[in-house]
């Protein structure tokens, strides 16, 4: 179980039609690999963000599978073309079943 998980995104407030913008996302999460042992020698169960997606106006932009070797607080930076005004929706899926969502609106013009 991960506590106090908070997603954050950085998306420009506006763009011109067809412009390629850079999006930055970060979520604080321990990304426990499932390989480590505690002081008693018991394996600490795996607890990671296993999938991250970004959609724009219902159309998928990026869909990422995360593996246990990815470090704590996973950060993603990627480019997206903005054809029209709308809303980016970001979703992180946790091993524990939690789903974290964040949205960001962008204007065109």
């Amino acid at each position, binding site marked *: 179980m991960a506590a106090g998980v*908070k997603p954050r995104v950085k998306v420009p407030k506006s763009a011109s039609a067809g412009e390629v913008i850079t999006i930055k996302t970060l979520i604080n999460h321990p990304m426990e690999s499932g390989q480590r042992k505690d002081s008693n020698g018991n394996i600490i169960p795996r607890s990671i963000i296993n999938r991250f997606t970004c959609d724009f106006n219902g159309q998928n932009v990026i869909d990422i599978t995360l593996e246990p070797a990815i470090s704590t*607080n996973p*950060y993603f930076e990627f480019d997206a073309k903005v054809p029209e005004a709308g809303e980016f929706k970001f979703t992180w899926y946790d091993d524990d079943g939690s789903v974290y969502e964040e949205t960001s609106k962008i204007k065109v013009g």
Partner: protein
Amino acid sequence: MNDLKKIALGSALAIGAGLGLAGGASADPDEDQLIINGEIEIITEAPAPEHLRDRIDTIYSGWRFRSDETQAIQTDDFTNPAMIAVEAAAEVWETPDGAAGKSCASCHGAVEDGMKGVRAVYPKWNEKAGEVRTLEMQINACRTEHMQAEPWKYDGNDMVNMTALIASVSRGMPVNVAIDGPARETWEWGRELYYTRTGQLELSCASCHELNYGRMIRADHLSQGQINGFPTYRLKNAKLNSVHSRFKGCVRDTRAATYPVGSPEFVALELYVASRGNGLSVEGPSVRN
């Protein structure tokens, strides 16, 4: 800034490719400039303070010794992982704790106002207590005396997060710790410790950070050991590290039994090492490898 940085990165790669392996030998501080969030200008190079002039001409922030990739992470608070800790501490700042029912904000107001410039002058002589206090000691004094709360572990998460928050509002201001007056005695002790060889390897702080900065120690690039960027988010352990934890790691690496974090020895050493950086900007929480 971001675009400039990308261009700089591109040309650095091109030069590196052209020179091939020969490029690896040069390891002096680079010429990059640090501007955080496109607005906070950080002084990463300054004339050495008066007391150091006979030994070193110029002081450099550790940021100048890191790779372009590591440097870039610190140029934007969004990409700096230490800012997660700063956010967490900002909540704690507002939250009452202890029998007196007070929070930090009850006395100090907004952290941006109440703590601006504080990081730059610590460690600092405390007249009432008759001792040099680090920021950590002052935070715990506030907690036990004014808030009637439990003190935090000296290098625990709560503490290092709070020092990161307090440092963050002084970024860009020059470090300026006082080394005269009543603090002088502690400072001189710290200087003595700095030049004392310890451990099976018989290394003093100066062996690496004064005489050999810029060189490689195995795979690591030695900086001047400046502490203007603390607390520091290290990529190697993916967490914030306090000054004393770092001291402990260095002394351990000389294969010596170390002083504990928060010990009078490390307090004195912190004052002395901080004074070697007088003139560099407060940079914490910084990002290093």
